[in-house]
């Protein structure tokens, strides 16, 4: 046999760099009913959730593959009675463990157990800056008071805290108060995340889409606060992407940086990947995570730049934003390999802007999350 130029195959294709982070969606159960829930319309039932042993095996496979940070998410991960042993299992394989929670279901006793298990960091969601507005969005009376209590317990123990504030048309004008609350709660970081309309949230575009004026003001508020609070509060800002000229590098590039595991073990390149047609997703731990990452056709589908069409294919930004979000391309253009319509070079950009502005002028009522209780 002589060496010839072969098309890439499973045998000759170089292994992709390993992922840095894994999002483990431990459960879809959640006491809140946020209208901007990004989980799919169809949720995984409790009976189908992986058990403690299976998650433990996945954590070990992830660490071996090169994952450094583990985000325990949901749903509400505190709905899992085995959260404490799961944290311990993740730390045992030296993963950095972040708990993403609403704080509902936390008690001092559970927090002590989580701390003893080695929990590194907590990311607490914030639905609003006062009980009325927060509980209205969460659809859970008393949620805000319990969240503030949870934040005090975290601060008393010195557990590092990030606040994640999902911002939309109803609360974006209270961004200054949101930043002040983060400082008051002793948070080290604040994520100001403009709502993204994936999953259930897509039903609430007209109820939650921010206006352009709101987004522009928010950017200025963040700029001022970052300078004023340097060394006090680090602020990450995710603007509404249709107010930008170019798309975000979704997931840092498909199959390049992170992976998601759903409650039943389905391994996804991104949170919303199940909305894309023609992809078949495998399950861990039965199929090892490393094999899925390297060889699964779903992870290769949009990895790198070979899959791109015009205008991405010849664009100098193709290795910066990797064509943007596949799920948004699918939702807006019907073609999962199209340029993200957020991009000003996309022929669909004008339609996207027009739709966003129409939604921003809407008056629709909130459609609360169903099926998670």
């Amino acid at each position, binding site marked *: 046999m002589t060496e010839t130029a072969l098309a890439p195959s499973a045998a000759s294709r170089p292994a992709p760099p390993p992922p840095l982070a894994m999002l483990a969606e431990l459960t879809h159960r959640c006491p809140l009913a946020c209208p901007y829930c990004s989980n799919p319309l169809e949720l995984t039932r409790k009976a189908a959730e992986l058990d403690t042993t299976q998650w433990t095996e996945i954590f070990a496979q992830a660490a071996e593959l*090169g994952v*450094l*940070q583990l985000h325990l998410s949901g749903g509400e991960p505190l709905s899992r009675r085995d959260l404490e042993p799961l944290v311990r299992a993740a730390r045992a394989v030296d993963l950095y463990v972040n708990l993403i929670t609403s704080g509902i279901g936390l008690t001092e006793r559970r927090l002590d157990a989580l701390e003893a298990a080695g929990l*590194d960091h907590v990311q607490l969601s914030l639905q609003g800056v006062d009980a009325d507005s927060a509980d209205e969005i969460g659809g859970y009376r008393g949620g805000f008071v319990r969240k503030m209590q949870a934040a005090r317990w975290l601060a008393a123990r*010195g557990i*590092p805290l*990030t606040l994640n504030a999902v911002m939309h048309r109803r609360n974006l004008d209270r961004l200054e108060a949101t930043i002040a609350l983060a400082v008051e709660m002793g948070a080290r970081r604040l994520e100001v995340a403009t709502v993204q309309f994936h999953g259930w949230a897509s039903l609430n575009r007209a109820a939650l889409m921010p206006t352009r004026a709101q987004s522009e003001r928010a950017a200025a508020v963040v700029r001022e606060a970052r300078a004023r609070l340097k*060394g*006090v509060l*680090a602020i990450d800002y995710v603007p509404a992407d249709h107010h930008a000229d170019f798309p975000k590098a979704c997931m840092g590039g498909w199959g390049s940086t992170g992976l998601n595991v759903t409650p039943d073990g389905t391994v996804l390149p991104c949170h919303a990947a199940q909305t894309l047609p023609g992809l078949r997703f495998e399950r861990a731990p039965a199929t090892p995570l490393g094999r899925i990452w390297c060889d699964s056709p779903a992870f290769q589908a949009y990895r790198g730049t070979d899959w791109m069409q015009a205008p991405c294919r010849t664009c100098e930004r193709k290795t910066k934003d990797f064509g943007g979000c596949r799920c948004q391309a699918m939702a807006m253009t019907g073609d999962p390999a199209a340029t993200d319509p957020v991009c000003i070079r996309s022929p669909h950009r004008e339609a996207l802007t027009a739709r966003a502005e129409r939604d921003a002028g809407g008056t629709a009522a909130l459609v609360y999350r169903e099926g998670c209780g």
Partner: protein
Amino acid sequence: MSLADHHRPRLLRGVRVKRDRVRGVDVLLAPERVLRLDPVGCAILAETDGERSFADIVAALAARFDAPPARIAADARTFLQTLIDRRIAEAR
């Protein structure tokens, strides 16, 4: 807060350095952040224990690398100040 010579910098809780055996590099793990450390960053953090002052750290590194203290101080200050500004380290 600006890092002064008498400050004793330290990494905040929830921040750790580890050897990434898969990639063969040292990394700093912090909330929502993974920073790849070069040998200079590693050496600075090895001296950053919350006990030693910034001036002590610079002196130790200058001796260890046989380098001019002014140059070491500039590098170490830039590196640590960035971590302080991003709420990964603190100076007391």
